[in-house]
Every structure is written in structure tokens, then in C-alpha cells.
């Protein structure tokens, strides 16, 4: 039976059912419902909830508890995730798993507290010091908020690497019916993390560390790409989007197909690793790509440019971007952009 839930609550419940034994967090709009929900839900199940003094402290609490064997979860938004980067970088350095969510708002600095996708480049490139990557799943529905949080724990333990749920304010705030999955165990000891001597935890003292981390990043990139193709057969123009804009783009594809236009959608599900293989699966007929993003300057666009370099058949494809700022582009805006590109009234996006 399905239950009507708010996106942020589904995210929280997904983490609970995925096995989170500890939530540590700090309030920030538009994700505060996550911690409000868990403030009663965790104690109800005999689990731990901690409101910390900052996002930095939230992530470091998670960092400590996960090293000691507990499945942990935290969530924040935009600038709060910036404050967590020191700990995220540290977790990647020491191969500590962990799950966190970024319910994005828009813009630099304090930004606008509604929605947005402005954190894409920061999050997909690591975001903290040194080079590392975090596996990033981008839901576009309340059901996926639940499902991605639910499976993220095992994914992060499989790679011993943090996993991020990259969502948006509006997905966090909207309500949809969801199917609730079964409960998973709350604790899982990881090799070398259960009462181990100091030297095991100090992974970066290992001379093979850089090589190992590099190998791991390459292996994750190969194995964890996720995408969805919609009406791409015989398409000449492909919209590329993740999150909420991938839903409005889907609407635009339907409308444009009704008008006889050859368009399709490549929906990015794993923001990192970026689904290059999804481009390989597209038909040879594609000539244009249009990214649809809630940001002020092209971000997904950069990854699409790289993908067209890596997939030989698209070396000559043109790449355009629709950046709708704080609010996801509406169907009409996307159609307008498409016709502007068709009529040669658009500059390429680089």
C-alpha cells in the first residue's frame, strides 16, 4: 500500500529503513523536515538522533560513529554541505563509508532557500581538498528520495566511500505517494574498523594510498553510471537533465513529439559518475544536446561537453544550455529554447 509523503520525510524514512542508526544534523531550509522527522522517528525505534552545533560537527559525528561500526546519516543544503567538506574529504581519504543528502537551494553564498541545482559542480568534483569523488544519486520524485536513501548505505559500504543524495528544495517539499521498503540491519562492521589497531585506520600512511584511491575512483566510474533514456529513438536533439528539470524536460519531449519534432531525454541519475555510457547508447542521428538546469551558469553542460569528447560519434555535436536560475524550467520555456536552437538563434554553450 502506498503512503502519501513529503519528499524530505521520504528521504528520512528511506535512511531509517536503509539502516541508519544515527542521524546528526543542523537545521537549514529547505531540508529541516528531515531532521524534524528523525528527531522523533529515531528514538521511537531506539536509535540515535543528535542535533549538533554546526554542519561541520554533524559530519564529524557521523565520521566518528561510522568508523566505530554504525550506519550513519546526515543531511543539509548548499552552504551547510560546504561546511561538511572537510569531513567528507577525510572520509574519502580513510575509506570511511557514509550517507548524506544535499537538498539544494540556489545560488552562491546564502543563496535562495527555495530550490536549485547550483551545487552540481562542487559536489561532483569532490568539493573539499585533494582529489576524491563521492558517488551521487539524483532523485526526481518522492519515491526515489526514499529508494536512493534506502540503498545508499550498502552502496557506500561496497566501495567504502561516501554516497550523496543530491536533491532539490522542491522535491523535498512536494508530496507524492510512495511504496515503503522493508527494514535493513542498522550496523555493519567494515574490515579493519572494528576495534582495530591505529595503523589500519591511518590509511594514508600507506605508500600505495594514492594509487589505491585512483584505482577505486576509476572502478567506481566504470561500475556505477546510471541514466534513463526517454523517447530517444531517431532523435536529433537530446535534452540532458537531472532532478526536477528532468521531469519538466520529459513533458517538453512529449509536447515536441506531438509537434513532430525528433527529440528525446537523457536523464542523469548518477551525477557522479556521469553517465557517459548513456551517450554511447544514443542513436547516431543525434546532432544537438540541450542541458536543462536550475542554475545560473552551465554546470551539467561541462559534463556533456566532456561526454561528447569521449563518445566518438558525437565529436561534432553541438551543446546548448538552458539555465533557469532558482526555479526549474517549465515545459513552455524548454520548448522555446528548442525552437531557438532550431532557428539558429542560440549560441553554443561554451
Amino acid at each position, binding site marked *: 500500500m502506498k503512503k502519501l509523503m513529503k519528499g524530505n520525510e521520504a528521504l528520512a524514512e528511506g535512511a531509517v529503513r536503509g539502516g541508519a542508526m*544515527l542521524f546528526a544534523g543542523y537545521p537549514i531550509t529547505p531540508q529541516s523536515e528531515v531532521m524534524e522527522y528523525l528527531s522523533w522517528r529515531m528514538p521511537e525505534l531506539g536509535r*540515535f538522533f543528535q542535533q549538533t552545533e554546526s554542519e561541520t560537527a554533524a559530519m564529524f559525528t557521523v565520521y566518528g*560513529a561510522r568508523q566505530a*561500526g554504525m550506519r550513519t546519516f546526515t543531511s543539509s543544503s548548499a552552504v551547510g554541505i560546504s561546511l561538511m567538506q572537510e*569531513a567528507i574529504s577525510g572520509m574519502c581519504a580513510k575509506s570511511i563509508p557514509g550517507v548524506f543528502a544535499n537538498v539544494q537551494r540556489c545560488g552562491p553564498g546564502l543563496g535562495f532557500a527555495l530550490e536549485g541545482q547550483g551545487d552540481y559542480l562542487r559536489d561532483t568534483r569532490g568539493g573539499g581538498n585533494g582529489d576524491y569523488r563521492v558517488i551521487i544519486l539524483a532523485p526526481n520524485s518522492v519515491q526515489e528520495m526514499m529508494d536512493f536513501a534506502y540503498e545508499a548505505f550498502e552502496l557506500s559500504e561496497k566501495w567504502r566511500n561516501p554516497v550523496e543524495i543530491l536533491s532539490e528544495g522542491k522535491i523535498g517539499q512536494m508530496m507524492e505517494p510512495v511504496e515503503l521498503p522493508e527494514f535493513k540491519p542498522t*550496523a555493519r562492521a567494515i574490515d579493519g574498523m572494528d576495534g582495530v*589497531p*591505529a595503523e589500519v*585506520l591511518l590509511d594514508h600512511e600507506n605508500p600505495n594510498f594514492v594509487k589505491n584511491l585512483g584505482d577505486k575512483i576509476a572502478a567506481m566510474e566504470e561500475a556505477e553510471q546510471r541514466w534513463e533514456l526517454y523517447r530517444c529513438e531517431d532523435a536529433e536533439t537530446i535534452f540532458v537533465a537531472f532532478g526536477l528539470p528532468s521531469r519538466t524536460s520529459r513533458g517538453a519531449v512529449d509536447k515536441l513529439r506531438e509537434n513532430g519534432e525528433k527529440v528525446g531525454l537523457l536523464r542523469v541519475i548518477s551525477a557522479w559518475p556521469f553517465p557517459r555510457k548513456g551517450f554511447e547508447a544514443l542513436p547516431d542521428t543525434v546532432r544537438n544536446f540541450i542541458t536543462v538546469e536550475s542554475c545560473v551558469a552551465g554546470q551539467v553542460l561541462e559534463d556533456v561537453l566532456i561526454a561528447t569528447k569521449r563518445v566518438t560519434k558525437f565529436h561534432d555535436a553541438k551543446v546548448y544550455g538552458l539555465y533557469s536560475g532558482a526555479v526549474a524550467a517549465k515545459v513552455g520555456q524548454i520548448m522555446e529554447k528548442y525552437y531557438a536552437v532550431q532557428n539558429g538563434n542560440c549560441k553554443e554553450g561554451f
Partner: protein
Amino acid sequence: MAVAKKRPTLTKDHGFCAGCGHGLFIRLLHEVLDETGYAGNFICVDGVGCSSNYFMATTKGSAIESHHGKAPTIARGVKLARPETLVFTYQGDGDAYVIGLSETLNAAHFGAPITTFVINNNNYGMTGGQMSWTTLPGQKTTTSPGGRNPEQTGLPIDPLQMAARFDAVAYAARGALNSPRNINMAKKYIRKAIELQIRDGKYAIVELLSPCPTDWNMAPVKAIEWIDQEVTKYYPLGEFKGTEE
């Protein structure tokens, strides 16, 4: 007749500078771990600075290297996951009282069931002797070459006495690692703090003044005297909370 003291099971030769207090602290800590029976059931969250050399001075045992100032927060997480394990932080003054001031005081405010040990040597030792908030007025460091000027950089900070005022703090004490008498007192403080966690799950903080001959540019003997003559003017010794027990 002199009696040879048995070496604690975890202790091995360390790489600290001659005359430094860190090695003394680790020795005392390991003695207390042996005596309380927790030598095989503890996790040390060490700070960034000279305290991050902990792993060099111990034969075995679990240590988690933290980020700068974040040890109390990490320790809170570790203790949640392993309530039966003794969890303490081992930090310097720059780590616990400057960059980690928020983390230290917040853990104290919560009454987190952990123990914090701060080795205060009035400067950033590991990075080569820069000014800390604990540096004495007029004390020369590599970033206060004319001596610390309190008009610009304030007087030495004392978070230990701030923490002592929080209800949730069970024990707060300051000792010094500069004489046999003080070293014996320091061990009592360490022991009391650890027992409070083991027995009652209470928060305690112990600060130990340590000589730093290398970065103070003093002979070890002079550094020991300097603590009594100058440092204790700003950092008085004793128990500030929990004396009744």
C-alpha cells in the same frame, strides 16, 4: 631502595623532542589504562599537532586521527557507536582551545560521555612554534616575534574554567608536567577523569601544562622552571570542578 617501575604494556619509545611533556602524558595515560583494565578497550581520538604523534608512542591500541580541532565531535560519534569502550581525545592547546574551541565547549556543554585531555604548551609546537591563544603576554613566537601584544591579540584564553561552569561537566582540572610532585598529581587527575567516564558516563576535561624547550628556545631545565614562574600566573593549577569526590 629504588624500585624499578614496570613499563606500561602499551608504551614504547617515542619521537618527541627532548624535554617535552607529551611523552610524560602518554606514559601516565598508559599507566592509568593498565590500572583501570582498559588498555585493551579504548579509542583515542588524537588531535592535529604534536598529539597526532600518538601512534608512534604506543605499541597497539585503537586511535582515530581527527581533523584539526574536531576530535571531541568525532569522539561523540565513536562513543555512541561503542558505549562500552573508553573514548577520549588527546589534543594540544591550539587544537582544543583555538581552532576547536567550539567543538571543545559544545562537547562540554552536552556533557558528552567522553574525556578530553589537553596538553597546553602555549604555542603551536608541531608547525614550528607559532602564537596560540594560550601564548603568554610578551612571549616571543615565530608569529609574534616582538612578543605577544595583548592589546592586539588578547590575553591567554582559559576554556578549562569556562567548561567548569557548565552543569554537565563532571570534572575539570589543570596539572603540570614539570616536577615529580606535579606529575604525580597529573596522574591522579587523569585517573579521576577516566574513572568518571567508566563509572558514570560523565564528561571530564584535564589540561596539562607542558614544557616545550624546542619552540620556547629554552634549555629543558629552564623550561621546567618557566612553567612555575610564568605559565601558572595565567594557568593556575588545581581542580576546578569535581573536587568533592
